[in-house]
């Protein structure tokens, strides 16, 4: 599998580490309550199909990326810098 790093170009997946679903970007406020925090830390959807994931280009540019891909077809639709998604 290759991932399209916006800075480095298409790179083999061995340069990256997988973190999990991109919902991890939506950190709850400290007073959001136990359910919001439990969901943020422990609960994830597991879609068969399109998903948005966080990958770290650790052996490359060091950028955190949000990768859009399909868990059934393994197609990779694109990747953007996580910090730009936040903004």
């Amino acid at each position, binding site marked *: 599998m290759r991932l399209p790093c916006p800075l480095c170009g298409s790179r083999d997946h061995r340069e990256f*580490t997988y*973190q999990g679903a991109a919902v*991890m*970007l939506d*950190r*709850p406020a*400290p007073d959001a309550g*136990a359910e919001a*925090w439990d969901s*943020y*830390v*422990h609960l994830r959807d597991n879609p068969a199909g399109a998903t948005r994931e*966080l990958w*770290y280009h*650790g052996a490359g540019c*060091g*950028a*955190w990326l949000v990768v859009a891909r399909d868990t059934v077809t393994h197609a990779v639709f694109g990747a953007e*810098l*996580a*910090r730009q998604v*936040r*903004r």
Partner: protein
Amino acid sequence: MLADATGRGIAETGTTTYRPPYVPVPIAAFGAGSQGMGFAPRRLTTSDAAARARGAVMIETGLWYRPAYFPQPGETHWRQSCDREVAMVRGHVGVCDVSTLGKIDVQGPDAAAFLDFVYAGTMSTLKVGRVRYGLMLREDGFVMDDGTAARLGERHFVITTTTAAAGQVMRHLDWVQQGLCPDMDVRFVSVTEQWAQFAVTGPMAQALLAGLIDAPLDGADWPFMACGAVTVGGIAGRLFRISFSGEAGYEIAVPARYGAALYRELVARAEAAGGGAYGLEALNVMRIEKGFITHAEIHGRVTAADVGMGRMVAAGKDCVGKVMAARPGLTEDRQVLVGLRPVGVVRQVIAGAHLFPADGPVSPETDLGYITSAAYSPTLGTMLALGFVRGGRERLGQTLRMIDHMRGIEAICEVTDPVAYDPDGGRMRG
């Protein structure tokens, strides 16, 4: 075989599905040269050659090679070397290469605010020229790593990590900065390789360094937990007054090109003062004597409160892990850090052994905890251990039954405070 089992003919059974390789291929070809020393990169410190020349027995810490102990003529067992090195450091002075610990240079207008968010404690209140111990938590509330933050300037810090977690911490910092705090104006880069760093520790440490660095080394100018720039033979270096051994101690850092030369110089001067080089076995004994934790204790399922550092999680600010660390499951009825020492006939405590009440049945239901680190303390003349025990702080002075089910060894232990040696810390603080 399958034809026999199913009662059909061979032709009718057919063959298995064809999958490569179609011709025999030696396993070594798949290894592609990754054999012996080629299996993984070797990371060597600047003192590596000098340590091996002194007969150091090396041990792997991740990809790094570090001296475990330095056997002297006549020593045939590692415990002899280790016991001697501990006495040498506590009685005179010892030198140990600590370059492998992660070092990250953090700068920018929001450097202090960033560190306040990644550390449980408050680093923004740290004065320039001072060092503070800190815990980093995971977002699920457990301790991820421990280390120090040294403030070299208003907007300039150098933080340390454990050797094993250096890469993980860097990845975490990148995550926090890019994913959670993209508006914070802070930049950081690893300087683990840039600086060779050596612990110089023991009653003679100050005298040794005073003779080596270019400016006077006055205890008043360098109180415990101070840091700053020094020069060694005109070379710009850094000095940190911190101690992992519990003796008066410093760490001195120079650019890595001078590491080999500085190590030789430090060890020569240490030997002249009745001391010398020490390795990881002795380092581990001394930190156990002091109740200092390593990843044996912060193994990924303990909180700051579990290791007696609950107050280090600052009340007035958010940080990674703050909210989840306070959840009921992590605050009630926990196994907390204690010291243990054997008081019965069997004078052993063993890492990995479990702890049960002195009387009564032994079962998973009566299991009170486990030992994480153990060592013979030549300083105190007994084995010592650190471990986690349910209600541990209320059990000080109680005896528990230690059972190593794997080795079939049992002992009676007393629960103690984790700090066995110099509890007031007077030897460190000076």
